[in-house]
């Protein structure tokens, strides 16, 4: 029966059915449009980055963008080499991963294989709070807590440096690495563990020689996705890593990442359309391509571990 009270009573069954079908169609179309908006957003991102950075690449040849070792777009002697920004981005993300991957993996093994369910139920949400902290707060923490702490250990550490920013980003992505890895380990079927126990292996041996290798592609995808997240992190580096481009792989140095550069220009007052301003779209395009490669690799690996069992 038609639920709507406003429907006229003498309407034939045929037209009621037709009206109902029409409404169903309309609803489905509306819902489809909502879902399709994600494709539109992706298309918009790609086209904005391409169109706006086209203005930049008309002035600066791609070869010098990729090979010049200086990034000084705001100086009168302008150089547009993305390498210093890319190197800083990779160093910071690398430090974050060196910190987060071992810790995150060990926590994941412990949560998945060792923790009693009570402990898991309470510790896991607490751990996930780490990723709920606003990133600007992490920036404050890196600049005013971690850096002074590191300065006591590392002599002559400048106030802005990549080390403390990287370590704090590492802290931030630990819950991410551990929860994706844990999901992968949880998906390993119990009979593999039982076979290992039957041979007399301890829980530790089973965890690291059976479960972890069996969940390898899932764990690897956690690493890659964690790295990609560290690459895209903005506020921590903008606050704590300094804002001058610096082509170096020494983590004690200050340097500017791609994301920090975009923030720096956005805070300034360059007019839209000037080459200096359009650099942020070229930088954004570089950033987007880097994370895209990692994300695709990560999703590919994650899909694989789901299909194995």
């Amino acid at each position: 029966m038609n639920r709507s009270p406003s429907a006229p009573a003498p309407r034939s069954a045929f037209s009621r059915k037709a009206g109902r079908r029409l409404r169903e169609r309309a609803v489905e179309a509306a819902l489809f449009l909502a879902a399709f908006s994600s494709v539109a957003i992706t298309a918009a991102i790609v086209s904005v980055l391409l169109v706006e950075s086209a203005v930049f690449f008309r002035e600066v040849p791609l070869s010098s963008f990729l090979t010049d070792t200086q990034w000084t777009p705001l100086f009168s002697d302008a150089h547009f080499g993305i390498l210093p920004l890319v190197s800083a981005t990779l160093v910071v993300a690398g430090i974050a991963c060196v910190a987060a991957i071992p810790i995150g993996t060990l926590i994941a093994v412990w949560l998945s294989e060792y923790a009693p369910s009570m402990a898991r139920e309470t510790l896991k949400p607490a751990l996930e709070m780490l990723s709920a902290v606003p990133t600007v707060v992490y920036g404050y923490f890196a600049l005013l807590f971690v850096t002074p702490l590191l300065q006591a250990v590392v002599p002559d550490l400048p106030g802005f440096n990549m080390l403390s920013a990287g370590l704090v980003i590492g802290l931030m992505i630990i819950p991410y690495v551990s929860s994706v890895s844990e999901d992968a380990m949880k998906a390993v079927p119990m009979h593999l563990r039982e076979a290992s126990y039957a041979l007399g292996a301890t829980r530790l041996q089973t965890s690291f020689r059976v479960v972890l290798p069996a969940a390898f592609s899932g764990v690897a995808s956690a690493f890659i996705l964690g790295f990609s997240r560290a690459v895209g992190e903005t506020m921590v580096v903008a606050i704590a890593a300094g804002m001058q481009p610096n082509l170096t792989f020494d983590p004690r140095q200050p340097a500017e990442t791609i994301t920090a550069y975009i923030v720096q220009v956005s805070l300034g007052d360059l007019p839209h359309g000037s080459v200096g301003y359009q650099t942020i779209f070229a930088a954004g395009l570089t950033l987007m391509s880097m994370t895209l490669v990692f994300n695709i690799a990560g999703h590919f690996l994650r899909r694989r571990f789901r299909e194995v069992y």
Partner: protein
Amino acid sequence: MNEALRRRLRRAKAFDKAFGVMGLLLTAAAIVCLGALLWDLAKDGLAIIDLSFLSSFPSRNAGKAGILSAWVGSLLVLFVTACSAVPLGVAAGVYLEEYAPKNKLTTLIEINIANLAGVPSIVYGLLALGVFVYRLGLGPSVQTAGLTLALLILPMVIITTREAIRAIPQSIREAAYAVGATKWQVTRDHVVPYSMGGIITGVIIGLSRAFGETAPLITVGALTFIAFLPPAPVTPAAPFVNFDWLRSPFTVLPIQMFNWVSRPQAAFHLNAAAAGLVLMGLALSMNAVGIAVRYRHRKRIRW
């Protein structure tokens, strides 16, 4: 059993025990870092937070500065975000779970959503700058900021909606179809209401992320020094509502904090700590509410 083997077994068991302890310590250490973060903020910021800090505008004088324009801005921006991301995200989630045929187009949409969830937040800022600020001419306003953050949390809302819907057993749908309900009636009267707990959790956690997000709003050109409030949304005279606030320039709490932390004077760092404390308190309690909603909902419904 020979002695060597026994020793090896003892050692393996000792390692096993040791790892059990180490894992706990490591997990605890990560959580202790969160505690250190809170303590570090509280030690500098707690003394600053009072009524006048909440009700003053930012100022060049660190002692007199407050976060009034920042928290009002955050509230308005989040309102716009919620109004745009929630209907769109829930509708998309419903479509993908209940309606979508298994074809290439659906796969394309799914891949897109997974990919959007991994796009760095600052890229959304560039998107908003290119589309909302320049193409549509909305300027660096409350509506631009709200829509930017809506795009940012959209994948999250879609993914959690889908997870919530997936947990509903097929038998519920079949029972409704059996008494003659159409697909939309099944969806509207059964599927969506029953998955509300999960959806609300996802929305709250998404909004808490939007609340703490800074980078994309800096990119669209949020001002850091705002010593006025947007026009009030409710007016005493007819028509009682006023949408001018949508076009007003704005600042939000994280940007205010960023502004203070990036100044060299230590007095402003104290303000930053206080703003950070407010920010973290709100973000973490939003998360806690989200988790509590999910927990309660899960307890109430037994399939």
